């Protein structure tokens, strides 16, 4: 039972992480460099 619960929790965490990365990518945030585009002064990509 403990294994199933842990596996489900882990699967949920991984799912949420992947979902967040896809969402960030779609909304133009940089998931690659980990920087927050809205806070970053160095990147001129949003023109």
């Amino acid at each position, binding site marked *: *039972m*403990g*294994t199933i*619960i*842990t*596996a489900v929790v*882990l699967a949920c965490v*991984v799912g949420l*992480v*992947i979902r*967040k*990365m896809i969402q960030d990518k779609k909304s133009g945030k*940089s*998931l*690659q*460099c*980990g*920087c*927050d585009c*809205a*806070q*970053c*002064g*160095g*990147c*001129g*990509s*949003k*023109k």
Partner: protein
Amino acid sequence: MSVKIALAGNPNCGKTTLFNALTGSNQFVGNWPGVTVEKKEGRLKGNKDVVIMDLPGIYSLSPYTLEEVVARNYLINERPDAIINIVDGTNIERNLYLSTQLIELGIPVLMAVNMMDIVEKSGDKINISKLSERLGCEVTTISALKGTGIMKAAERAVALANAKKAAPKVHKFAVKVENVLTAVEDKLGSDIPEEQKRFFAVKLLEKDDKIGEQMKKVPDVSAEIEMLEKEMDDDTESIITNERYVYISSIIGECYTKAGKETLTVSDKIDKIVTNRWLALPIFAVVMIIVYAVSVTTVGTWATDWANDGVFGDGWSLFGLEIPGIPVLVEGALEAIGCADWLMGLILDGIVAGVGAVLGFVPQMLVLFIFLAFLEACGYMARVAFIMDRIFRKFGLSGKSFIPMLIGSGCGVPGVMASRTIENDRDRKMTIMTTTFVPCGAKLPIIALIAGALFGGAWWVAPSAYFVGIAAIICSGIILKKTKMFAGDPAPFVMELPAYHMPTAGNVLRSMWERGWSFMKKAGTIILLSTIVLWFLMSFGWMDGSFGMLEAEELDYSILAALGGVFAPLFAPLGWGDWKMAVAAITGLIAKENVVGTIGILFGVAEVAEDGAEIWEQLAASMSAVAAYSFLVFNLLCAPCFAAMGAIKREMNNIKWFWFAIGYQTVLAYAVSLCVYQIGMLCSAGAFGIGTVVAFLLVIGFIYLLFRPYKESTTLKVDMKKAAMGIK
């Protein structure tokens, strides 16, 4: 209905500081010009109907730079309801040039004279009412840093926006110019609003080639230009510029009183030493040695030891209270609920070991980020760009290339992207190719790991990594500049040196936190997923002819070992031909933090399974110090992570150039690492072999490429086919 207010002003006059104070935002503020390269939006505190727009710092509304184009297009096309023109009170004469252009836009303008506290401290006097009268717009005084007068300025700007009354055009050019301007204004169509006609007329007279993009119909004003140029014996752009400066000089004469004789300011006195021809470089070297040595050893080590051995280790004590480490807590919880061994292995040996190995270096990174934020905010880094310009120029790059490298010390992606502000295509390409040589934040854990595990925390390892990066940039510049692709003089570099000031603790801590938080978020996403994949690849494999899950001591039979084994021989001449190190270097392509994460998993698994030795000791036992330094150098210089490679591809906008950049970086990294290992082993252990011969040949090759004379082409090559097609 919302009110839009734009913040416009020269670079480094305090726009973003004012923007943050008015909106409660946390935009990055740096004490060097060009921090904001795009517009940013926020809402006024206490009045959400007011939208504040932070524009990039510009010197004029002429489209010389990308920032000027962004700001000008916004002001013309979006037409904010009012402009707050922030003017640096300590340098008012230069700032007024832009002000005279903003007033011509036909938008209500409030001039906010910033840094009044410094003006008053110096004893200088600005006659605000006279200034307002001469410019024809409202003028107020503020100190954005201390927050004095800023809400009053915002209220006045909102009132001006609601009144919708543009500033009257007080400034008159010389009669001849005014006559021509009137003639040009008459030629403008009805698509140009009445209040903007003067601005467009001036721009047409200045032969601004981009202004036509903002007009439906561009009138022919060549006759007017020719007439004016003939009458005033100069080109129209110079005539207009000169007229503006005459006007500004007359304003300064009436409104600005200097306290006394021109004396050196504190900034000037500091600059006499810090930017001194002979002292500048040694001072810069000492500063960076201190920054990296303190970050990675001393303070950083204490903090990281606590994180690695305590938080991500067996536990730590707080005021006598024993707090167990995360692995202990997780293991206890998993055992309590009866979790299967394989899943415990995945969580403890994979996720906790991998992500924990990366997060363990967060304290060191935060210390480094505090130092970098302080150096940026106080104004020293702007001086470094000036100092580096002197050196960069000798091998064909300008100091402007240092700005992307400065940004790249946080993360290579924005660093590479920042290169787009470099107008010269040759300089830009060379900057893109070399920016990632500067160790980014993600490489710091690799540096710290090697310094701690293989060199006993020696102080010189971390600074040497930084200088290896700088040396790679300089040598690459020299070598590449002697090729036909990059030959030519570097573009001129003009940069205003801001006054030194003590940065606010909030600004420094905010900058540190933003960079650190980005790193932690990355550990929780990309690194976490990578560790799971790595664990599976590491835990399954073929043994005795059958595929299955492996024990900790059977790692050499894993899928990962098989994959790593393919690449490992490639790295054998560099001293780290072990499949584990090969895998670590390759996973670094996903994200550089993965190098440490992978080492954490591959060497950490033995800690749990076998003899309980520390990861660092396991790592130290697997290779010599010289091989470890070679590994460090390779990871510092080789192709960056996929994210930075993507940025390079976008910025190069050419697949051949992209592969050339990646190939160059990888070949350089391989060659330098090979030399480090082979020559290092010869010196330390007397080892001599074919590798040593290759290393010496490479060194000779390097020296030749560095010192070979550059021959300018003396023959003109003409493609006769293309030439014939061009002649019709």
